[in-house]
Protein backbone atom coordinates (compact mmCIF):
# COMPACT_ATOMS: atom_id res chain seq x y z
CA UNK A 1 0.00 0.00 0.00
CA UNK A 2 1.25 3.45 -0.96
CA UNK A 3 1.58 5.84 1.95
CA UNK A 4 2.38 9.48 1.42
CA UNK A 5 2.25 12.78 3.36
CA UNK A 6 -0.58 14.98 2.12
CA UNK A 7 -0.29 18.76 1.82
CA UNK A 8 -3.74 19.96 0.70
CA UNK A 9 -2.99 23.69 0.54
CA UNK A 10 -5.23 26.64 1.32
CA UNK A 11 -7.36 26.60 -1.84
CA UNK A 12 -8.43 23.02 -1.24
CA UNK A 13 -10.16 23.96 1.98
CA UNK A 14 -12.15 26.82 0.43
CA UNK A 15 -12.50 27.61 -3.27
CA UNK A 16 -11.52 24.11 -4.37
CA UNK A 17 -13.24 21.89 -1.79
CA UNK A 18 -14.37 19.56 -4.55
CA UNK A 19 -10.74 18.88 -5.49
CA UNK A 20 -9.95 17.86 -1.89
CA UNK A 21 -13.06 15.68 -1.58
CA UNK A 22 -12.51 13.94 -4.93
CA UNK A 23 -8.80 13.44 -4.18
CA UNK A 24 -9.51 11.75 -0.87
CA UNK A 25 -12.29 9.67 -2.43
CA UNK A 26 -10.20 8.44 -5.35
CA UNK A 27 -7.19 7.70 -3.13
CA UNK A 28 -9.35 5.74 -0.71
CA UNK A 29 -10.75 3.74 -3.60
CA UNK A 30 -7.26 3.01 -4.93
CA UNK A 31 -5.99 2.25 -1.42
CA UNK A 32 -3.46 5.07 -1.31
CA UNK A 33 -2.96 6.27 2.25
CA UNK A 34 -2.88 10.08 2.47
CA UNK A 35 -1.50 11.30 5.80
CA UNK A 36 -2.46 14.95 6.21
CA UNK A 37 0.29 17.05 7.78
CA UNK A 38 -1.05 18.33 11.13
CA UNK A 39 -1.24 22.14 11.38
CA UNK A 40 0.47 22.60 8.01
CA UNK A 41 1.10 26.19 7.05
CA UNK A 42 0.59 27.86 3.68
CA UNK A 43 3.36 27.35 1.11
CA UNK A 44 3.56 31.12 0.60
CA UNK A 45 2.57 30.88 -3.09
CA UNK A 46 3.84 33.52 -5.52
CA UNK A 47 3.68 36.18 -2.85
CA UNK A 48 6.47 34.68 -0.75
CA UNK A 49 9.01 34.34 -3.53
CA UNK A 50 8.46 37.85 -4.85
CA UNK A 51 8.92 39.40 -1.41
CA UNK A 52 11.68 37.37 0.21
CA UNK A 53 13.72 34.35 -0.74
CA UNK A 54 13.92 33.20 2.86
CA UNK A 55 10.15 33.23 3.39
CA UNK A 56 9.70 31.25 0.18
CA UNK A 57 12.09 28.56 1.44
CA UNK A 58 11.18 28.52 5.14
CA UNK A 59 7.40 28.11 4.85
CA UNK A 60 7.49 24.91 2.75
CA UNK A 61 10.52 23.64 4.71
CA UNK A 62 8.33 23.16 7.80
CA UNK A 63 6.11 20.67 5.99
CA UNK A 64 9.08 18.99 4.34
CA UNK A 65 10.77 18.48 7.71
CA UNK A 66 7.62 16.90 9.15
CA UNK A 67 7.32 14.46 6.25
CA UNK A 68 11.00 13.65 6.54
CA UNK A 69 10.60 12.76 10.22
CA UNK A 70 7.81 10.35 9.32
CA UNK A 71 9.89 8.86 6.53
CA UNK A 72 7.29 9.72 3.90
CA UNK A 73 7.34 11.35 0.51
CA UNK A 74 5.12 14.39 0.20
CA UNK A 75 2.40 15.18 -2.31
CA UNK A 76 0.10 18.06 -3.06
CA UNK A 77 -2.79 18.15 -5.53
CA UNK A 78 -2.29 21.90 -5.99
CA UNK A 79 0.29 22.74 -8.66
CA UNK A 80 1.29 25.95 -6.92
CA UNK A 81 1.89 24.25 -3.56
CA UNK A 82 3.72 21.42 -5.31
CA UNK A 83 5.94 23.90 -7.11
CA UNK A 84 6.74 25.86 -3.95
CA UNK A 85 7.57 22.70 -1.97
CA UNK A 86 9.76 21.37 -4.76
CA UNK A 87 11.49 24.70 -5.47
CA UNK A 88 12.15 25.27 -1.77
CA UNK A 89 13.79 21.85 -1.63
CA UNK A 90 15.92 22.57 -4.71
CA UNK A 91 16.96 26.03 -3.53
CA UNK A 92 17.88 24.84 -0.04
CA UNK A 93 19.94 21.98 -1.49
CA UNK A 94 21.78 24.32 -3.85
CA UNK A 95 22.52 27.13 -1.40
CA UNK A 96 24.24 26.23 1.91
CA UNK A 97 23.81 29.76 3.25
CA UNK A 98 20.08 29.64 2.65
CA UNK A 99 19.94 26.20 4.26
CA UNK A 100 21.60 27.52 7.39
CA UNK A 101 19.20 30.45 7.59
CA UNK A 102 16.16 28.22 7.04
CA UNK A 103 17.26 25.83 9.78
CA UNK A 104 17.77 28.75 12.12
CA UNK A 105 14.36 30.24 11.34
CA UNK A 106 12.29 27.05 11.62
CA UNK A 107 14.36 25.73 14.50
CA UNK A 108 14.80 22.29 13.00
CA UNK A 109 17.36 20.43 10.93
CA UNK A 110 16.72 20.00 7.22
CA UNK A 111 18.13 16.89 5.57
CA UNK A 112 16.21 16.93 2.30
CA UNK A 113 15.40 13.22 2.25
CA UNK A 114 11.76 13.69 1.24
CA UNK A 115 10.79 13.64 -2.41
CA UNK A 116 8.08 16.08 -3.47
CA UNK A 117 5.67 14.70 -6.05
CA UNK A 118 2.58 16.14 -7.63
CA UNK A 119 -0.56 14.06 -7.09
CA UNK A 120 -0.72 13.24 -10.81
CA UNK A 121 2.63 11.50 -10.50
CA UNK A 122 1.61 9.57 -7.40
CA UNK A 123 -1.54 8.30 -9.10
CA UNK A 124 -0.42 7.85 -12.69
CA UNK A 125 3.23 6.90 -12.27
CA UNK A 126 3.61 5.35 -8.84
CA UNK A 127 0.23 3.64 -8.61
CA UNK A 128 0.36 2.93 -12.32
CA UNK A 129 -1.97 3.27 -15.27
CA UNK A 130 -2.41 -0.50 -15.59
CA UNK A 131 -3.56 -0.75 -11.98
CA UNK A 132 -5.99 2.13 -12.50
CA UNK A 133 -7.32 0.40 -15.63
CA UNK A 134 -8.11 -2.69 -13.59
CA UNK A 135 -10.33 -0.62 -11.28
CA UNK A 136 -12.40 1.14 -13.95
CA UNK A 137 -16.14 0.59 -13.61
CA UNK A 138 -17.34 2.87 -16.37
CA UNK A 139 -15.41 3.78 -19.50
CA UNK A 140 -15.65 7.43 -20.49
CA UNK A 141 -16.41 6.63 -24.14
CA UNK A 142 -16.91 9.52 -26.52
CA UNK A 143 -15.65 12.26 -24.21
CA UNK A 144 -13.10 14.63 -25.75
CA UNK A 145 -10.87 16.03 -23.04
CA UNK A 146 -8.31 18.83 -23.32
CA UNK A 147 -5.68 18.18 -20.64
CA UNK A 148 -4.44 21.49 -19.30
CA UNK A 149 -1.17 21.31 -17.33
CA UNK A 150 -0.47 24.99 -16.82
CA UNK A 151 2.82 26.35 -15.58
CA UNK A 152 3.81 25.09 -12.22
CA UNK A 153 3.40 21.36 -12.72
CA UNK A 154 5.86 21.27 -15.59
CA UNK A 155 8.17 24.27 -15.27
CA UNK A 156 11.03 24.78 -14.72
CA UNK A 157 12.56 21.60 -16.18
CA UNK A 158 13.86 20.44 -12.76
CA UNK A 159 10.33 19.87 -11.42
CA UNK A 160 9.13 18.01 -14.50
CA UNK A 161 10.54 14.54 -13.88
CA UNK A 162 9.91 11.80 -16.47
CA UNK A 163 7.88 14.00 -18.77
CA UNK A 164 8.44 16.48 -21.56
CA UNK A 165 8.47 20.08 -20.46
CA UNK A 166 6.90 21.58 -23.56
CA UNK A 167 4.54 18.74 -24.36
CA UNK A 168 3.71 16.76 -21.20
CA UNK A 169 1.71 13.57 -21.71
CA UNK A 170 1.06 12.32 -18.16
CA UNK A 171 -2.60 13.32 -17.97
CA UNK A 172 -3.21 12.53 -21.66
CA UNK A 173 -2.14 8.96 -20.99
CA UNK A 174 -4.54 8.76 -18.06
CA UNK A 175 -7.40 10.09 -20.17
CA UNK A 176 -6.67 7.49 -22.85
CA UNK A 177 -6.60 4.73 -20.24
CA UNK A 178 -10.01 5.81 -18.97
CA UNK A 179 -11.48 5.32 -22.45
CA UNK A 180 -11.85 9.01 -23.31
CA UNK A 181 -10.10 10.84 -26.10
CA UNK A 182 -7.32 13.34 -25.30
CA UNK A 183 -7.56 16.34 -27.60
CA UNK A 184 -4.47 17.51 -29.45
CA UNK A 185 -4.08 21.18 -28.68
CA UNK A 186 -1.39 23.76 -28.31
CA UNK A 187 -2.14 25.56 -25.07
CA UNK A 188 -1.39 22.66 -22.71
CA UNK A 189 1.29 24.51 -20.80
CA UNK A 190 0.35 28.14 -21.44
CA UNK A 191 -0.17 30.32 -18.38
CA UNK A 192 -3.69 31.14 -17.15
CA UNK A 193 -2.48 34.22 -15.26
CA UNK A 194 -3.16 32.65 -11.86
CA UNK A 195 -0.95 34.95 -9.84
CA UNK A 196 -2.81 37.96 -11.22
CA UNK A 197 -6.32 36.69 -10.64
CA UNK A 198 -7.02 39.29 -7.95
CA UNK A 199 -4.46 42.00 -8.67
CA UNK A 200 -4.21 42.34 -12.47
CA UNK A 201 -7.46 40.70 -13.39
CA UNK A 202 -7.49 41.97 -16.98
CA UNK A 203 -4.35 39.94 -17.70
CA UNK A 204 -5.77 36.80 -16.10
CA UNK A 205 -8.93 37.22 -18.20
CA UNK A 206 -7.00 37.58 -21.45
CA UNK A 207 -4.70 34.60 -20.85
CA UNK A 208 -7.51 32.33 -19.65
CA UNK A 209 -9.68 33.45 -22.58
CA UNK A 210 -6.99 32.40 -25.05
CA UNK A 211 -6.77 28.96 -23.44
CA UNK A 212 -10.53 28.40 -23.42
CA UNK A 213 -10.90 29.58 -27.01
CA UNK A 214 -8.15 27.23 -28.17
CA UNK A 215 -9.70 24.29 -26.30
CA UNK A 216 -13.04 25.02 -27.94
CA UNK A 217 -11.51 25.40 -31.41
CA UNK A 218 -9.72 22.06 -31.05
CA UNK A 219 -13.02 20.34 -30.34
CA UNK A 220 -12.74 19.67 -26.60
CA UNK A 221 -15.90 18.84 -24.63
CA UNK A 222 -14.25 19.68 -21.36
CA UNK A 223 -10.97 20.91 -19.94
CA UNK A 224 -9.22 18.80 -17.31
CA UNK A 225 -6.95 20.57 -14.82
CA UNK A 226 -4.78 19.66 -11.85
CA UNK A 227 -4.55 23.04 -10.13
CA UNK A 228 -7.15 25.01 -8.14
CA UNK A 229 -5.86 28.35 -9.42
CA UNK A 230 -6.16 27.32 -13.07
CA UNK A 231 -9.61 26.03 -12.24
CA UNK A 232 -10.88 29.22 -10.68
CA UNK A 233 -9.59 31.27 -13.62
CA UNK A 234 -10.99 28.95 -16.29
CA UNK A 235 -14.26 28.09 -14.56
CA UNK A 236 -15.32 30.88 -12.19
CA UNK A 237 -14.13 33.62 -14.55
CA UNK A 238 -15.49 31.92 -17.67
CA UNK A 239 -18.80 33.89 -17.75
CA UNK A 240 -16.88 37.23 -17.62
CA UNK A 241 -14.42 36.01 -20.23
CA UNK A 242 -17.20 34.89 -22.59
CA UNK A 243 -18.77 38.33 -22.29
CA UNK A 244 -15.41 40.02 -22.87
CA UNK A 245 -14.49 38.11 -26.02
CA UNK A 246 -18.13 37.93 -27.18
CA UNK A 247 -18.01 34.17 -27.79
CA UNK A 248 -20.13 31.49 -26.26
CA UNK A 249 -17.70 29.21 -24.42
CA UNK A 250 -19.61 27.03 -21.97
CA UNK A 251 -16.81 24.47 -21.51
CA UNK A 252 -16.94 22.61 -18.20
CA UNK A 253 -13.63 22.50 -16.32
CA UNK A 254 -13.07 19.41 -14.17
CA UNK A 255 -10.27 18.33 -11.87
CA UNK A 256 -8.45 15.22 -12.99
CA UNK A 257 -9.50 13.45 -9.79
CA UNK A 258 -13.14 14.11 -10.68
CA UNK A 259 -12.70 12.64 -14.17
CA UNK A 260 -10.95 9.63 -12.62
CA UNK A 261 -13.74 9.39 -10.04
CA UNK A 262 -16.36 9.25 -12.80
CA UNK A 263 -14.54 6.31 -14.37
CA UNK A 264 -14.34 4.62 -10.97
CA UNK A 265 -18.13 4.73 -10.83
CA UNK A 266 -18.81 7.64 -8.46
CA UNK A 267 -21.79 9.93 -9.07
CA UNK A 268 -21.97 13.70 -9.33
CA UNK A 269 -22.86 14.17 -5.65
CA UNK A 270 -19.83 12.18 -4.47
CA UNK A 271 -17.54 14.21 -6.69
CA UNK A 272 -19.28 17.54 -5.94
CA UNK A 273 -19.79 18.39 -9.62
CA UNK A 274 -22.41 20.95 -8.53
CA UNK A 275 -19.65 23.24 -7.20
CA UNK A 276 -18.54 24.30 -10.67
CA UNK A 277 -19.75 27.52 -12.25
CA UNK A 278 -20.12 25.84 -15.64
CA UNK A 279 -22.39 22.89 -15.03
CA UNK A 280 -20.84 19.71 -16.46
CA UNK A 281 -23.92 17.55 -15.87
CA UNK A 282 -25.79 18.17 -19.16
CA UNK A 283 -22.67 17.20 -21.12
CA UNK A 284 -22.00 14.08 -19.06
CA UNK A 285 -25.64 13.03 -19.28
CA UNK A 286 -25.63 13.48 -23.06
CA UNK A 287 -22.57 11.23 -23.29
CA UNK A 288 -24.24 8.63 -21.09
CA UNK A 289 -21.66 8.89 -18.30
CA UNK A 290 -23.91 10.15 -15.50
Amino acid sequence: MLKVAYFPGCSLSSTAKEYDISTRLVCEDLEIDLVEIPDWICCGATTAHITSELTAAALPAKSLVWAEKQGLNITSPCSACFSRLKMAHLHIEKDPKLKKEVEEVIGEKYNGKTEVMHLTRILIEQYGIENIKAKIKKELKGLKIACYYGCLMTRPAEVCVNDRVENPMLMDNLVKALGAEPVKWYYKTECCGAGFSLTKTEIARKLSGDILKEAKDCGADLVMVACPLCHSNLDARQPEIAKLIKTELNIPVLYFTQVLGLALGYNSMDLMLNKHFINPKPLLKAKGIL
Partner: protein
Amino acid sequence: MKYELQLKNIAEGFRKDVENLSQQKISNCYQCGKCSAGCPVAYAMDYPPSMIMRMVQLGMHDQVMSSNTSWYCVSCETCTTRCPREIDIAKVMDTLKIMAQAGSYKLSENEIPIFDWIFLKSIELTGKIYELGLIGAYNLLSLHPLKDIYPMGLKMIIKGKINFIPHLFYNPSELIKNIRMFKLIRKKDRERIYEKNA
Protein backbone atom coordinates in the same frame (compact mmCIF):
# COMPACT_ATOMS: atom_id res chain seq x y z
CA MET B 1 23.85 61.80 -33.16
CA LYS B 2 26.65 59.37 -32.70
CA TYR B 3 26.70 57.70 -29.32
CA GLU B 4 29.63 55.65 -28.29
CA LEU B 5 29.16 53.06 -25.57
CA GLN B 6 32.11 53.10 -23.26
CA LEU B 7 32.89 50.86 -20.34
CA LYS B 8 33.43 53.83 -18.05
CA ASN B 9 29.83 55.00 -18.64
CA ILE B 10 28.31 51.78 -17.42
CA ALA B 11 27.12 51.68 -13.83
CA GLU B 12 28.43 48.24 -12.97
CA GLY B 13 27.26 48.30 -9.38
CA PHE B 14 23.63 47.80 -10.30
CA ARG B 15 24.36 44.70 -12.38
CA LYS B 16 26.48 43.29 -9.58
CA ASP B 17 23.74 43.92 -7.01
CA VAL B 18 21.18 42.10 -9.14
CA GLU B 19 23.60 39.27 -9.85
CA ASN B 20 24.53 38.82 -6.19
CA LEU B 21 20.98 38.86 -4.88
CA SER B 22 19.57 36.59 -7.59
CA GLN B 23 22.71 34.44 -7.87
CA GLN B 24 22.29 34.52 -11.64
CA LYS B 25 24.96 35.42 -14.15
CA ILE B 26 23.13 38.10 -16.11
CA SER B 27 26.23 38.97 -18.12
CA ASN B 28 25.78 35.57 -19.80
CA CYS B 29 22.71 36.81 -21.68
CA TYR B 30 23.43 37.04 -25.42
CA GLN B 31 20.08 38.54 -26.43
CA CYS B 32 18.53 35.62 -28.30
CA GLY B 33 15.11 36.88 -27.26
CA LYS B 34 13.58 33.50 -26.42
CA CYS B 35 12.35 34.77 -23.07
CA SER B 36 10.48 37.66 -24.69
CA ALA B 37 9.04 35.40 -27.40
CA GLY B 38 7.60 32.98 -24.86
CA CYS B 39 6.47 35.50 -22.25
CA PRO B 40 2.65 35.52 -22.05
CA VAL B 41 2.57 39.01 -20.56
CA ALA B 42 5.22 40.67 -22.74
CA TYR B 43 2.43 42.53 -24.55
CA ALA B 44 1.64 44.52 -21.40
CA MET B 45 5.22 45.24 -20.31
CA ASP B 46 7.12 48.49 -20.81
CA TYR B 47 10.17 46.46 -21.90
CA PRO B 48 10.15 42.72 -22.68
CA PRO B 49 12.33 40.45 -20.46
CA SER B 50 15.29 40.26 -22.88
CA MET B 51 15.50 44.05 -22.97
CA ILE B 52 15.51 44.17 -19.17
CA MET B 53 18.42 41.72 -19.17
CA ARG B 54 20.36 44.02 -21.52
CA MET B 55 19.48 47.07 -19.46
CA VAL B 56 20.74 45.36 -16.30
CA GLN B 57 23.98 44.51 -18.12
CA LEU B 58 24.35 48.17 -19.03
CA GLY B 59 23.50 49.32 -15.50
CA MET B 60 20.42 51.33 -16.51
CA HIS B 61 18.93 51.18 -13.02
CA ASP B 62 16.49 54.07 -13.26
CA GLN B 63 14.83 52.73 -16.40
CA VAL B 64 14.72 49.16 -15.07
CA MET B 65 13.36 50.02 -11.65
CA SER B 66 10.75 52.49 -12.91
CA SER B 67 9.41 50.11 -15.58
CA ASN B 68 6.44 47.84 -14.93
CA THR B 69 8.17 44.75 -16.35
CA SER B 70 9.10 42.90 -13.17
CA TRP B 71 5.68 43.62 -11.65
CA TYR B 72 3.94 42.20 -14.70
CA CYS B 73 5.93 38.96 -14.48
CA VAL B 74 3.36 36.26 -13.68
CA SER B 75 6.03 33.71 -12.56
CA CYS B 76 5.05 31.13 -15.20
CA GLU B 77 8.76 30.21 -15.60
CA THR B 78 8.58 29.91 -19.40
CA CYS B 79 11.62 32.17 -19.82
CA THR B 80 13.63 30.25 -17.22
CA THR B 81 12.80 26.93 -18.86
CA ARG B 82 13.77 28.08 -22.35
CA CYS B 83 16.85 30.22 -21.67
CA PRO B 84 19.79 28.68 -23.57
CA ARG B 85 22.21 30.45 -21.21
CA GLU B 86 20.51 28.89 -18.19
CA ILE B 87 19.69 32.17 -16.54
CA ASP B 88 16.74 31.90 -14.15
CA ILE B 89 15.04 34.98 -15.58
CA ALA B 90 11.92 34.60 -13.45
CA LYS B 91 14.16 34.72 -10.39
CA VAL B 92 15.83 37.88 -11.68
CA MET B 93 12.34 39.43 -11.95
CA ASP B 94 11.67 38.36 -8.34
CA THR B 95 14.95 39.96 -7.29
CA LEU B 96 14.03 43.24 -9.01
CA LYS B 97 10.74 43.24 -7.09
CA ILE B 98 12.50 42.50 -3.82
CA MET B 99 14.98 45.33 -4.49
CA ALA B 100 12.14 47.71 -5.31
CA GLN B 101 10.40 46.88 -2.05
CA ALA B 102 13.57 47.25 -0.01
CA GLY B 103 13.20 50.99 -0.36
CA SER B 104 16.16 52.32 -2.30
CA TYR B 105 14.03 52.92 -5.41
CA LYS B 106 10.62 54.47 -5.98
CA LEU B 107 7.96 51.78 -6.28
CA SER B 108 6.42 51.70 -9.75
CA GLU B 109 3.58 49.47 -8.59
CA ASN B 110 1.32 49.71 -5.54
CA GLU B 111 -1.38 47.07 -5.83
CA ILE B 112 0.81 43.96 -5.76
CA PRO B 113 2.84 45.00 -2.68
CA ILE B 114 -0.43 45.72 -0.84
CA PHE B 115 -1.77 42.30 -1.82
CA ASP B 116 1.47 40.61 -0.76
CA TRP B 117 1.49 42.33 2.60
CA ILE B 118 -2.06 41.19 3.41
CA PHE B 119 -1.33 37.70 2.10
CA LEU B 120 1.73 37.22 4.30
CA LYS B 121 -0.04 38.71 7.33
CA SER B 122 -2.76 36.13 6.88
CA ILE B 123 -0.19 33.32 6.91
CA GLU B 124 1.52 34.84 9.92
CA LEU B 125 -1.65 35.04 12.01
CA THR B 126 -3.63 32.00 10.88
CA GLY B 127 -1.05 29.77 9.18
CA LYS B 128 -3.21 29.69 6.08
CA ILE B 129 -4.91 32.04 3.64
CA TYR B 130 -8.16 33.54 4.88
CA GLU B 131 -9.75 34.31 1.50
CA LEU B 132 -12.63 36.48 2.63
CA GLY B 133 -10.34 38.66 4.74
CA LEU B 134 -7.72 38.78 1.99
CA ILE B 135 -10.15 39.88 -0.72
CA GLY B 136 -11.98 42.29 1.58
CA ALA B 137 -8.84 43.96 2.89
CA TYR B 138 -7.24 44.08 -0.56
CA ASN B 139 -10.32 45.65 -2.17
CA LEU B 140 -10.51 48.30 0.53
CA LEU B 141 -6.82 49.19 0.52
CA SER B 142 -6.53 49.19 -3.28
CA LEU B 143 -9.63 51.42 -3.47
CA HIS B 144 -11.76 49.04 -5.58
CA PRO B 145 -14.18 48.00 -2.82
CA LEU B 146 -16.63 46.20 -5.11
CA LYS B 147 -14.17 44.35 -7.35
CA ASP B 148 -15.11 40.70 -8.01
CA ILE B 149 -17.98 40.88 -5.51
CA TYR B 150 -20.72 40.53 -8.09
CA PRO B 151 -21.40 38.15 -9.75
CA MET B 152 -18.33 35.97 -9.10
CA GLY B 153 -17.87 36.47 -5.36
CA LEU B 154 -21.56 36.16 -4.60
CA LYS B 155 -21.85 32.98 -6.63
CA MET B 156 -18.83 31.55 -4.83
CA ILE B 157 -20.49 32.22 -1.48
CA ILE B 158 -23.73 30.58 -2.67
CA LYS B 159 -21.76 27.54 -3.84
CA GLY B 160 -20.10 27.31 -0.42
CA LYS B 161 -16.62 27.98 -1.80
CA ILE B 162 -15.73 30.77 0.63
CA ASN B 163 -15.20 30.18 4.34
CA PHE B 164 -16.50 32.89 6.66
CA ILE B 165 -14.39 31.86 9.62
CA PRO B 166 -10.60 31.82 9.23
CA HIS B 167 -8.70 28.59 9.84
CA LEU B 168 -6.98 28.71 13.18
CA PHE B 169 -4.11 26.79 14.67
CA TYR B 170 -5.32 23.78 16.64
CA ASN B 171 -2.41 24.26 18.94
CA PRO B 172 -1.94 27.85 20.25
CA SER B 173 1.79 27.32 20.82
CA GLU B 174 2.10 26.82 17.05
CA LEU B 175 0.71 30.33 16.55
CA ILE B 176 3.35 31.82 18.81
CA LYS B 177 6.03 29.79 17.04
CA ASN B 178 4.74 30.99 13.69
CA ILE B 179 4.77 34.68 14.64
CA ARG B 180 8.27 34.27 16.04
CA MET B 181 9.39 32.64 12.79
CA PHE B 182 8.07 35.55 10.72
CA LYS B 183 9.81 38.04 12.98
CA LEU B 184 13.10 36.19 12.55
CA ILE B 185 12.66 36.05 8.77
CA ARG B 186 12.13 39.82 8.61
CA LYS B 187 15.28 40.37 10.62
CA LYS B 188 17.32 38.08 8.36
CA ASP B 189 15.92 39.75 5.25
CA ARG B 190 17.00 43.15 6.49
CA GLU B 191 20.48 41.78 7.11
CA ARG B 192 20.60 40.37 3.59
CA ILE B 193 19.74 43.69 1.93
CA TYR B 194 22.17 45.50 4.24
CA GLU B 195 24.92 43.06 3.28
CA LYS B 196 24.26 43.83 -0.37
CA ASN B 197 24.54 47.58 0.19
CA ALA B 198 27.69 47.28 2.26
